[in-house]
């Protein structure tokens, strides 16, 4: 990571901030921390310990913002990533947890971070992971969709599209002229 000169002064206070962060993170034993660079941390934590970690970070290290929750479908389990940001330490912490594939259920962190409600609802609609305790668990985006969760790897969109919709022969004049002159559509 290249830092130009006038940033030199701020370099050390980042260092001191990360030291404070290290002490906090070491209090929980079941973590393994990997520091990507001095502004980005990756923390792997067990599924049960995540709420504790979030409240710890929010309370002690000023992590007031839960930027997003993303979900990865590993076909045998789900991975949920909680991206946290603090305006004091200016270090992005992404907490990764793994939950079982069936039944796809996890506890909601709505009471710690209220924006979590929106992210959890999206994940519920797109991946089918139900978050207990969240007040926003109805359909919001896919109200017209009654099929399986569409973002899952198990859902074959191409097959669905071919069964559900049909195509139309699109033979506009300009295409006919090109074909008359020997050109063809490269499929």
């Amino acid at each position, binding site marked *: 990571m290249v830092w130009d000169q006038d940033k030199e002064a701020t370099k050390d206070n980042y260092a001191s901030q990360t030291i404070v962060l290290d002490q906090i993170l070491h209090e929980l034993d079941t973590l393994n921390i990997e520091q990507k660079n001095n502004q980005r941390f990756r923390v792997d934590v067990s599924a049960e310990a995540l709420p504790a970690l979030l409240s710890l970070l929010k309370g002690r290290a000023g992590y007031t913002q839960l930027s997003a929750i993303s979900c990865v479908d590993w076909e045998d389990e789900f991975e949920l990533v909680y991206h946290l940001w603090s305006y004091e330490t200016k270090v992005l912490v992404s907490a990764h947890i793994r939950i079982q594939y069936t039944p796809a259920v996890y506890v909601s962190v709505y009471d710690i971070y209220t924006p979590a409600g929106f992210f959890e609802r999206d994940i519920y609609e797109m991946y089918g992971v139900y978050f207990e305790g969240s007040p926003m668990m*109805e*359909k919001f985006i*896919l*109200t*017209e*969709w*009654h*099929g399986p969760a*569409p973002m899952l790897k198990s859902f074959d*969109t*191409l097959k*669905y*599209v071919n069964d*559900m*919709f*049909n*195509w*139309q022969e*699109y033979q*506009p004049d300009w295409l006919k002229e090109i074909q008359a002159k020997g050109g063809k559509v490269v499929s």
Partner: protein
Amino acid sequence: MKDVIPIQTNNTETIAVSKNSKNIYQQAIDTFSNFCRARSLFVLHYCTGCGAIELPPAMTSRFDMERLGIQPMVTPRQADILLITGYVSIKTLKRVILTYEQMQGPKYVIGICSCTVNGGMYWQSYATAKVLSEYLPVDMYIAGCMPRPEAVLTGLQQLMKKIEKGEANSWENYFKRYDYYLGNQQHLFGDTWHTPTDILEEARHYHLYGAESTGNNTARLIKYTVEHDLTKLDAPLREKDSMTKRGKK
């Protein structure tokens, strides 16, 4: 909805109405009204997708639609042309159909951008409708992943020529072959799909009630309407409650 027994017709040939069966005055009035219809078109200011960004430049000083007599209008009641610009997600398609049925004939639909032709770059998405002409009678397509304003204007001019010649009456197909369109719509939205406008009633009122207006799809709709007696005022409320009960997990 009067109690109409749906008759099964499978002959698909459409009865050709010969042009000169009308008398001279009727013909003179028709040609004059087509002349006026071609010269004054009101475009519905309703952007369904990404292509709508091409319309403001077409209206403002560089290309100026108004010199062709085309004006943007705000509500479907006042508009003649419905521009479907860009991809049509299933959710938007419901609103597009509602808006189309609120428009007054003779009305024209122009599919701008190739997403309305065969799905465009969203062709493999589960959430977009691929072929627009299955759900609405489309007069003209303007291909291009957002065609430039010149293309939009040439498309509109070609439509004006069609109107002047009196050939742009695809809107009557919506009434004449309503069963086909309703079938495709029910295929997407489920069998309880219906809009506040009563199409079969309007088809009879405007004498556009062809053989194909009713079929087994409309039979399902009529059965559903009679069952829930939708003509009552509180029908939308009862329907909404039954929908939310069914929707709950």
